[in-house]
């Protein structure tokens, strides 16, 4: 989860000034939000399902060792080869080892955030194996050498004109004068190119949305069917997933599936939900001969039993980013991490350490929409606050913020002085604003007033108003 070397502020300024990005982000604001609202409204049992989904995950996290062991027993009995990886580097090497063992040259890949998190593609490429992303969005960003900007819509930051340019540059064997106006033409082109890759691949790598302890199963959810072609055609299927994905039973996964697609895209259910248990069985006409599951920890077990444990309930629907005013304004790349949006602002410091992503927990207006739309009820703003507190405690917050907070704390502890200072401050600001009632410039708040005027306070302080109200109430 590396940043690109630029500071967070620089990335944000770049994002705000990028007209193509701003055009593309309009689609997030318009479509995802409205579709999810409609899907939720059409399911009266939403609240009950969300409560149950949260309870299922909380229960599993309290007994995660046992559910992982139960899943492993069933999966192994069905012929799966289970691998455990404590770190990203162990996970990369495990997948590389499997590919080498079968002499793989090209591997197709379904969308997997864990594979992004462990930087699997770079590792395979460095070792002479060509990974080909097959989810259309992932394929596009692979051509561009970018990270996904969204959990479920990795290329949501791009316009079709940009995709057209990328395709013309990459697919040089096709006629240069071909028409590429409509998204359908670009989809058809990618389908043709990727179909050959599916048929030629030696190994198919997918993620898993869930592991089911009851049956030893891994589950993927897609709309394109790319994950299915990835896992059914090659000789070897490798699932790269993480310890937090295990769910007790098929009934439990049904509860969560009712929330996943509705939260993500507003669909009632994704087009394809695929439950895989072991490799090809005797007599089966197709399917992989070998089925490996790489179970990655990469920092997750350290979150158990801490205030950050609830983040492990996340089912990666992306609703928090779709509804976040910061994400809507700057997109995913500004976060400079594999996981963007509110969930990224928590997951990135949670997995990489508070100083690896110090700006992200501060990139929030604390409006609470992320928590409100989270089907797993993860208290994301509270967790961002947790990281902010850590930063202040470690004296790593910006100096201005630390000094400001210290001054405020000193004042707040002395109510008499506080009232005096706020009254005086208001007068000064009123005078500075003059007749317009607006401040064009304010010392220490230049970042605010550079873009807009600050309305000057009017009338009396809150304390005065409150005291007056209490007096009025006390009168018989």
């Amino acid at each position: 989860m590396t940043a690109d070397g630029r500071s967070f502020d620089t990335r944000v300024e770049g994002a705000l000034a990028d007209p193509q990005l701003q055009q593309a982000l309009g689609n997030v604001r318009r479509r995802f939000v409205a579709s999810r609202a409609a899907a939720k409204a059409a399911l009266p049992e939403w609240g009950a399902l969300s409560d149950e989904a949260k309870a299922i995950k909380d229960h599993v996290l309290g007994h995660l060792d046992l559910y992982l062991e139960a899943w492993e027993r069933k999966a192994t009995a069905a012929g799966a080869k289970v691998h455990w990886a404590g770190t990203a580097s162990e996970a990369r090497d495990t997948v590389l080892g499997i590919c080498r063992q079968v002499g793989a040259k090209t591997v197709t890949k379904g969308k997997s955030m864990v594979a992004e998190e462990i930087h699997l593609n770079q590792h395979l490429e460095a070792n002479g194996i060509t990974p080909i992303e097959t989810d259309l969005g992932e394929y596009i960003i692979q051509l561009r050498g970018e990270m996904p900007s969204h959990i479920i819509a990795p290329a949501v930051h791009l316009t079709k004109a940009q995709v057209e340019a990328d395709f013309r540059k990459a697919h040089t064997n096709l006629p240069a004068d071909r028409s590429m106006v409509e998204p359908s033409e670009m989809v058809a082109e990618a389908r043709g190119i990727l179909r050959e890759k599916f048929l030629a691949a030696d190994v198919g790598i997918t993620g898993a949305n869930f592991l089911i302890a009851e049956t030893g199963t891994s589950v993927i959810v897609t709309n394109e069917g790319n994950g299915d072609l990835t896992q059914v055609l090659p000789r070897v299927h490798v699932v790269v997933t993480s310890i937090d994905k295990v769910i007790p039973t098929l009934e439990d996964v049904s509860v969560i599936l009712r929330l996943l697609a509705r939260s993500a895209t507003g669909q009632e259910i994704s087009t394809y939900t695929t439950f895989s248990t072991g490799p090809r069985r005797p007599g089966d006409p197709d399917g992989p001969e070998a089925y490996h599951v790489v179970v990655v920890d990469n920092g997750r077990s350290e979150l158990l039993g801490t205030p950050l444990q609830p983040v492990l309930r996340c089912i990666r629907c992306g609703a928090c980013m779709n509804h976040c005013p910061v994400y809507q304004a700057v997109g995913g790349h500004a976060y400079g991490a594999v996981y963007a949006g509110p969930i990224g602002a928590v997951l990135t410091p949670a997995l990489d350490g508070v100083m690896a992503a110090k700006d992200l927990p501060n990139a929030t207006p604390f409006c609470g929409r992320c928590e409100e739309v989270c089907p797993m009820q993860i208290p994301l703003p509270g967790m961002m606050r947790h990281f902010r507190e850590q930063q202040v405690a470690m004296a790593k917050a910006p100096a201005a913020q630390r000094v400001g907070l210290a001054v405020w704390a000193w004042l707040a502890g002395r109510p008499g002085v506080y009232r005096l200072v706020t009254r005086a401050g208001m007068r000064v600001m009123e005078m500075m604003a003059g007749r317009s009632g607006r401040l064009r410039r304010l010392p220490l708040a230049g970042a605010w007033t550079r873009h807009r005027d600050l309305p000057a306070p009017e009338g009396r302080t809150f304390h005065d108003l409150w005291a007056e109200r209490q007096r009025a109430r006390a009168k018989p």
Partner: protein
Amino acid sequence: MSDAARAKILGQIRHAVGKVDGDAARRTAVEARIAAHCRGSVPARASVAGGEAMVAFVARLKAASISVAEAAHLSDVPRLTADYLRAHNLPARLRMGADPDLAGLDWASAAPLEILSGRAEAGDEVSLAKAFAGVAETGTLVLTSGPNNPTTLNFLPETEIVVVRAGDVVGGYEDAWDRLRAAYPGGLPRTVNWVSGPSRTADIEQTIVMGAHGPRRLHVIVSG
């Protein structure tokens, strides 16, 4: 590497949740919860059966861009299949598995349909499969892999036709799981596919386009 990593991860989890290995009561409770596989809240829309489930199932298939034909008897399937292919200007050639319900039909009655059997190949344009069940809740087809049911039929061709027996249409996902447990007491088939529409993508400017990688067209024949 993997064994050491396994011990370390599980040890770390036990430490974090404040438990020790070999806690028999905890293990028994977890195993009992899995064995009981209790249902959670089943939405009202999924708590339907019989004719009501069928009406909801067909309506949701259509809402999900799946075309639907109804056959009074299984023996009507070859004719309805041929009609569909003709109406869509598709070749009179299809690939299917060895499902006894389908393989036992009089395909010659719908001549000149050419039937290829086995797993789907790259050049196949049309496939025919039989669903294990249909779920009314979301208009979802449940397909299972096995010697008679190649999974590739559901993903390689551009057009897929799926036959669902009316008696196999259930209300919710949980009903389908109960049927699967009864039909496969030894554990799930290698692959269980829930299919709820033609393949689609919205990755370019969130414009929905059908036929991303899997079938562009999905046609369901509901048969008595």
